């Protein structure tokens, strides 16, 4: 077992994990933050996307020990109390979801996209979200949500 510590959603957390424990297992099972979902188990669907030191990452493809000392944000860490992050609000208001299982990963990827691109275009969003699968929608409202959310993030700066 290995001792690890990291900052998750602004709080210092510590844990003892096996060297093979996946980061998503640490988040879901040790920290009980179940908003990060496991969809495909093999780093393709994107339901488990979180932010590690400011970059989006598929948490089912990282070991917990690799995140030792990192600053992690999960879907639960976005809102400011009752106030949603602009990207969360955009997904909700634009009906950018149906069953909701892919939504946390979509939102996390979308924020990273917005952070890293000054001016998001529809094309950039389509390319940028290729690693996040949604099986319910046809992506229309998701793309709309990301563009709206990105604009709202800019306005809030």
């Amino acid at each position: 077992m290995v001792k690890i510590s990291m900052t998750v959603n602004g709080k210092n957390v510590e844990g003892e994990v096996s060297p093979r424990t996946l980061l998503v297992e640490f988040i879901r099972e040790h920290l009980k933050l179940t908003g990060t979902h496991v969809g495909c188990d093999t780093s393709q669907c994107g339901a488990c996307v979180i932010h590690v030191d400011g970059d989006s990452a598929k948490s089912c493809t990282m070991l917990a020990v690799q995140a030792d000392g990192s600053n992690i944000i999960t879907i639960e860490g976005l809102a400011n109390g009752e106030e949603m992050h602009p990207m969360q609000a955009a997904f909700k208001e634009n009906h950018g979801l149906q069953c909701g299982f892919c939504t946390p990963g979509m939102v996390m990827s979308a924020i990273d996209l917005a952070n890293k691109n000054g001016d998001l275009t529809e094309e950039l969003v389509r390319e940028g979200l290729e690693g996040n699968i949604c099986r319910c929608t046809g992506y229309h409202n998701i793309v709309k949500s990301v563009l709206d959310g990105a604009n709202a993030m800019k306005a809030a700066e």
Partner: protein
Amino acid sequence: MSKLIPDITKDKIAGGVYQNKLHDSGHKHVNGQAVYVDDIPEPHGMLHIYMGMSTVAHAKIKSMDLSEMRASEGVACVLTVEDIPGINDYSPVKGDDPIFAEGKVEFIGQPIFAVAADTIDLARAAAKKAVIEYEELPAILTIADAMEKGSYVSDPHVMARGDADGRIATAKHVIKNSVELGGQEQFYLEGMIAMSIPGEDDEVKVYSSTQHPSEVQHNVAKALAVPDHAVTIETRRLGGGFGGKESQPALMASVSALVAKATGRAAKLRLDRDDDMVMTGKRHDFHFEYEVGFNDDGLIEGVSMLHACRAGYSSDLTDAIADRAMFHCDNVYWLPNIKVESYRCKTNTVSNTAFRGFGGPQGVFLIERIIDEIAAKLDKDPLEVRQKNFYGVDDNNVTPYHMTVEDNVIHEIFEELEESSDYQKRRAEIREFNKHSKVLKKGIAMTPVKFGISFTTTFLNQAGALVHIYTDGSVKLNHGGIEMGQGLFTKVAQVVAEEFQIDIERVKITATDTSKVPNTSATAASSGSDMNGMAAQAAARTIKQRLTDFAATQFQASVEDVEWLPNRVRVGSEEIAFTDLVKQAYLNRISLSSTGYYATPKIHYDRENCKGRPFFYFSYGAAVTEVLVDTLTGENKITRVDILHDVGKSLNPTIDLGQVEGAYVQGAGWLTTEELWWDQTGRLRTHAPSTYKIPACSDRAEDMRISLWEKGKNAEETIYRSKAVGEPPLVLGISAFHAISDAIASVTDYEVYPALDAPATAERVLMAVDRTKKAAKS
């Protein structure tokens, strides 16, 4: 606080029917607070289950040595067929789906044993220590093989009317051909999962990701040999179902309940994605043969069809699915002389199951293919041939199963879409473009859908609901339907809000629970809001009538003088807030709780004679798809889609639009990129999204114009005259397939019909390009 003190002065409630109310759980989905089964806090000491699966397609089990596995670290329990106190079966209909293999295995991935340990890693590690010896038997893996050997899960079924063979023989033109149509993996983002908690005596509670809690309940009870009343199934939401969670979740639930009762500990069975794709059924693939006779105008005089679908090793829901394919062999066309033979092939592959459309899309696929080929042969616009063969509104309107189509609106929808999509102009432009573009070719196609609404197994068309009003005027709603993203809970809550004329925030929607509403049908067949909406309305109306009577008595007025206004009731000149009326009713000992029940009227069907009215009504729609195909690589892309779809009077246009869009993309995925591939030993090689290509964000057409048909209104008395929406628009994905075919045809200047098989992967497109070029030369 505003939610607690309803506004009793406004003109309109928030969240009634016909309003664009957002998904009830939207705020929870975006912040990660929506709870799926795997997110429920795990009880102390919970066990994790792993299933041992067959590694061969067909074999006798010679021996099993599980001793090392039993002794493995952390193992609490091992189950095989010997450990089932009740019946070793989780099938929906025929008793042919063993929970654990008994003496023989019939497909790769079939469960043989379950091992439960303290962690899933320990369970998986233990499972590796099982030693199973097989004596392999010959395996039937394909439809062709099964047809040759006469291997079926049930008797072939024939539907016929008129004289198909005779009219084909005398027709001026005849086409005889065949086509292959692939299956489809549901790929619900949340995989199969169940968690069981043992209770007192023979009780067990199962949290199951299922579209059909009642059936899970029956199967768990049957496996445990306890009465149904001992088993409670609860399901708050699914991370997608698409039919895949209609029958087969009973396996996961049964195994987890067996472990829970055997050990006295909670037990969870969550399938890893790869195991899920190998172990659970998909959309049925079909082999079709057809012969059609038609005149110079393309009017079909007689048509003979052969449907052969791959059931897999067991029946599951295959009979109903293959029947629905037959019910949709006509789509929107009048086929006076028709014969359809249907074969349900038994193979040594996973048991195929429900998938959005339930055989309907496959049935439509064939007749649309036939029409397309007729048009190609006559060098006509397929749109013209389609319209030529449409059912009439007042005549030529009887289906092959003798149901009169009373609500035909396809003529209007087609005309409107032809114009709004600018079909004719674009088709001419595309043909011009193709003349000058050597490698890149464009194609366009317009296809219609008519989809029958009701379970064709008539008794399933019933639903129940339970409504309580508490003394503070807040309402709790429960019904038998399952929320799987389609917005059912939102729609049913809108209905209840509308009945009571209260803001929707006053209505709490609760998890589907077999102890609240019993004996429910699956949330399937697009029937969720039709049936549960009506049941909830009935429950609300019962209470509303009591309140109306009470108000009339209290204010010494007649019942006719009681008027329900937003968040209040007016009696003569007096107004009383809904919450106050409820409180007074309680003090005067008026019951504020009621069940509601609905049974779809008018439907009946005599399967033996293929006669009756299996459907309450039909849903209609049409789509125009334009594609771009690279004829050197076979790569293709959908560039524009126009859809006009009839959802009657939409209960919630935002939600319905989302359904139409998602269904189209899923249908197009089925027929283009989603390819299931088994190797020659019967092993599924496309068992993860790395090899099985689901439409991604970048695959969606850049230009997508979707409209709900404004004139839509259900001719039948459905819930607020709305229409079902879940499945019908999936069929519209067929237009993408025909558009690709149209683009390929251009390489021979439309002289040779490409005869494309589905799915139209880049590989198949390329092969079709080569084939048509060769055929044109010869």
